[in-house]
């Protein structure tokens, strides 16, 4: 079982990711797509201590060489943020989702895609003097889940 936590207000610059209770850094991209039909995608891309970019399955792989940092948010700051957590072993049947430490029920679908912006310019001489002609990849922050209501209707909400 692994626990991934996302503490955020919906903005990339105020988003902390926790892995098994410890804040991690160096993340490039995080994708979570869980569905009651059995879909279970949990992919993380990060830069490790060794400057190598890793692509790992959050709940299936060991996040080797991932950077662990001190919590960046104070308690006061955390009051204005939402803490979204997934505790799972990679099987949708053994997955518990909670929001601000309260377990959620009736989830149909969950989709989180957080991606930081970065330039693909490289460090060549042309790029150095020519500036960054290519626009950097746009940051993405999409997080929503779908619930089944009592009347069997579905409602989709933003997580943060």
């Amino acid at each position: 079982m692994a626990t991934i936590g996302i503490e955020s207000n919906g903005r990339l610059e105020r988003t902390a990711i926790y892995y098994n209770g410890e804040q991690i850094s160096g993340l490039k991209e995080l994708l979570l797509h869980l569905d009651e039909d059995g879909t279970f995608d949990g992919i993380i891309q990060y830069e490790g201590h060794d400057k190598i970019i890793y692509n790992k399955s959050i709940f299936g792989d060991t996040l080797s060489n991932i950077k662990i940092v001190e919590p960046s948010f104070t308690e006061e700051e955390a009051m204005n943020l939402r803490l979204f957590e997934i505790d799972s072993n990679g099987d949708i049947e053994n997955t518990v989702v909670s929001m601000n430490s309260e377990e959620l029920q009736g989830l149909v679908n969950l989709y989180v895609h957080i991606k930081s912006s970065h330039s693909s310019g490289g460090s060549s001489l042309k790029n150095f003097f020519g500036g960054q002609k290519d626009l950097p990849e746009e940051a993405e922050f999409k997080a929503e889940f779908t619930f089944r209501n009592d009347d069997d209707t579905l409602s989709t909400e933003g997580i943060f």
Partner: protein
Amino acid sequence: MKTSIINKPFLAIITIALLWLLVGTELLEARGGGSRGGSFGGSRSFGRSSAPSRPSAPASAPRSSFGGNRSTAVGSGAAKSSSFGGTRMASSGDYTSKYGTPRRTVAGNTMAGVPGNYRVNDYGGYSSSLMMGYMMGSTSMMWSMPFHPAFYYSRPYYVTNPDGTVGVYPPTFSFAKLFFTLVILGAIIFVIYVIIRNRRRNNGSWGVTHSQSSFD
């Protein structure tokens, strides 16, 4: 992932630029110079190789000539010799036609450390002060630095007169040296500007600060 901004090629460029700033323009001055031939290095632009050798300079000379036998030109108006590392002219007329007649001419034997057959032409001003500094050997390493005005002046000009005396003329301001210095300084400033610009873009990710984020 943070990109290394200052990499080896650019350090090499800056190093080469600084070396050129300190040394290259001196070489340019010595080798090029249009009609002026350098005393050290470069090729002669006048003179005859069959000319007899000239007696060595007095021991009190602040600088020695090349050493060994040297060739001189003979005949009126033709340059015979050069010395002290200055710039050699074919005749004094080359200088006086551009800068006029000197205020006064001082014999070398009245100055400490200057050979007696030298005739120092004083035009006044900063360049004459530089000339006196060169003549008396009281130069400084600072003169080779681009932030010192002397850097932008040539060495004194020497011309050997038919009567055996050596006329010394003040250095002249080198616009080419100033131009190259400005170009190189501009290039260095531009590189620094680009480094700062790239660092701001990379660190700030286009204005977004990720200091509290798990994402880079």
